[in-house]
């Protein structure tokens, strides 16, 4: 556990899982959850680097920024999802784009 690689592997796994979620899910909110996983994977990396990689506290600050971004993204994305849902009555992303055309 006291190794940079362990954390990087964990982050990689989370990242792939997140990608999987984003690719397979059609529901907007489920996609959002996949994105959260990806962001979290990145965060783990940053903080692992800051402990082992000499990134020191810059890593923490970056992670902090990412979390903030995630929050902002979630708020806006959800507003959009809700808006789409209102107009098109679906939150399946591909259906929504199909209807739009």
């Amino acid at each position: 556990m006291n190794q940079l690689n362990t954390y990087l592997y964990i982050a990689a796994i989370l990242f792939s899982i997140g990608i999987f979620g984003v690719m397979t899910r059609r529901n907007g909110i489920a996609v959002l959850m996949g994105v959260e996983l990806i962001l979290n994977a990145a965060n783990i990396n940053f903080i692992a680097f800051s402990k082992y990689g000499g990134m020191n506290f810059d890593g923490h600050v970056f992670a902090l920024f990412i979390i903030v971004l995630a929050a902002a993204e979630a708020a806006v994305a959800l507003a959009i999802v809700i808006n789409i849902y209102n107009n098109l009555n679906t939150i399946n992303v591909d259906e929504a784009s199909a209807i739009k055309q």
Partner: protein
Amino acid sequence: MYRDFGTILLAMAVGVVFLCLPLFLQWLLAPSNKTKDKLEVFECGEDPEGSAWLKFNMRFYIIALIFLIFDVEVVFLFPWAVVFKDLGMLAMVEMGIFLIILSVGLAYVWVKTDLEWVKRKVKYASGRYENLKQ
């Protein structure tokens, strides 16, 4: 730090056990007499009309949640507040800008009446106490 958070983890485990124990006791001691009506949900004695799991109109609450963004702002304030005394005026000014920018956001939604939580459509209103914006 490990020891502290280890204690917290342990406390969670203990908490689960602490809850499971009485639940187990309850399972042992309490009578159980499941009838059809009992397993129905309570709706003041009437037949529930439809499930509660429908598309609940939460417009009203969602607005509150958008202010999650303010939550994030608070998060930024914590590290700032810790070093505030060391950095003095400089930190104050920097944070002042930060806060003012966000206050603009608050002011914006305030002015745009997004903070009026409910948009009621009522027939009669008088506004004597002027609290009610129609």
